[in-house]
């Protein structure tokens, strides 16, 4: 069994890594990672806009985003992929590669999910920051830009990293529309070998495990560090604030 696995890796490692790249589209693990990274990079700014819209006091901004978030939370990603596969070529009028279709879906899906993360990060900061910013003469957007978001986004780094991990896992669904990613490459290998499906899919599972486990590990480490730093900052802040409070009570 183990020797079978080693033979498969030896024979097909290049296909699993980059697909048929020089002779065809880039695929395999490289494409999985590029697709995930691009999705997050594009979804991130969108998610900030969505979060701000959802926190807005104007219903006209708040409602559509709330609906979008509930739809993405309630409808399977697979269904959304089928929608993009149908709508994206229809709307753009072009023959769109499946990579772009998958990218569009993931940007919308993860954008909505990340917007909840961003919103939670902003809400967790409390009203005091906004009140203080406004009191110092910042506008609403200015306070967001210079005071709220820098703190909220810093606290969110671990959550963003775990969203990246779920994006990597979600790219596997591209399989249904033939996105040439790692899963696609593995099923190609399986189709060539025919006799060792368990070994091939075990390799596939192990590769995903290695990547996602290491990223999750990094996220945990970062989370611990950020929590400690925030706690340290809290103590120092409390020390600064405490005397001021006494002074104000005396006056």
């Amino acid at each position, binding site marked *: 069994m183990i020797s079978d696995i080693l033979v498969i890796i030896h024979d097909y490692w290049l296909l699993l890594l980059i697909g048929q790249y020089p002779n065809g589209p880039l695929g395999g693990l490289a494409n999985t990672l590029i697709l995930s990274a691009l999705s997050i990079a594009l979804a991130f700014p969108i998610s900030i806009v969505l979060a701000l819209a959802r926190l807005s006091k104007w219903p006209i901004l708040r409602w559509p985003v709330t609906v979008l978030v509930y739809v993405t939370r309630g*409808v*399977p990603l697979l269904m959304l992929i*089928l929608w993009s596969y149908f709508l994206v070529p229809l709307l753009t009028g072009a023959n769109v590669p499946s990579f772009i279709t998958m990218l569009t879906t993931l940007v919308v899906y993860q954008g909505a999910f990340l917007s909840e993360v961003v919103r939670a990060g902003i809400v967790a900061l409390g009203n005091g920051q906004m009140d203080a910013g406004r009191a110092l003469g910042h506008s609403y957007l200015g306070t967001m830009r210079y005071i709220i978001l820098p703190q909220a986004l810093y606290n969110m780094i671990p959550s963003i990293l775990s969203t990246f991990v779920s994006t990597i896992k979600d790219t596997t669904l591209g*399989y249904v529309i033939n996105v040439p990613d790692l*899963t696609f490459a593995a099923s190609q290998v399986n189709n060539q070998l025919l006799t060792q499906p368990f070994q091939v899919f075990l390799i596939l*599972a192990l590769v*995903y*495990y290695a990547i996602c*486990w290491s990223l999750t590990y990094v996220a945990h480490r970062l989370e611990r560090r950020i929590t400690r730093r925030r706690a340290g900052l809290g103590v120092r802040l409390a020390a600064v604030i405490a005397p001021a409070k006494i002074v104000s009570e005396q006056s």
Partner: protein
Amino acid sequence: MTGFDLSAILTNPDYVAMLLHGIEMTLVIAIGSWLLAMTLAILLLAIRFSPGRFGDWFVAAYVSYHRNVPTLVQLMLWYFGIFTLMPDWLTYWLAGHNAEAIFAVIGLGLCQAAYFSEDLRSGLRSVGPGQMEAARALGHGYLSAMRFVLIPQGVRNALPPLINHSVSLFKNSSLGVVIGASELTHAVKEIENLSFQTFEIYLVGTVLYLFFSLIIMAGGAYVTMRADPAWRARA
């Protein structure tokens, strides 16, 4: 595309029958794997709370594998991989008993058990050691303290993530289509192939999924409210 016409799908008895069968299969897969996942999660939790390092190590490995490997890959490993390694008599039996749905239930159930057990564990951990000490001081035994003091509070803390993960489990039942289970997504694609009314049938499928997800979310919100001590004190 010839205009938007939902009635052509909803009045065709064949399509309605396919949709109903798809819904039934989706519910069977979702409920079956939920029950499997919850049973396994409680088992994993029991192993984790019992003495001995080997059990801890096993549960940690189980959770780590199922959370870091994509659910689709787990399903593929079960259906394309492990299925073929099974003894002949079992393969024949499964093939005659809707193997696709059975493997969807097994794959999704085993995967979600990891999430459920972590939800329950962090719920229990957030109760705090003081509760156990107080219960023991009042004369409860370990199990009795667990039963009457720790678990009610722990489960209450675990409810929000448990509900979220139940919704994900329901959504993940759509992955069954990749291994050929004839659930709702499968029915949607079949009807699309037959009717060419892509927009209409996708809309029907989306609304159906959304409907069940919202029911789970609303039911979860109701259970969470019922479990809240403030609500119970008022009632």
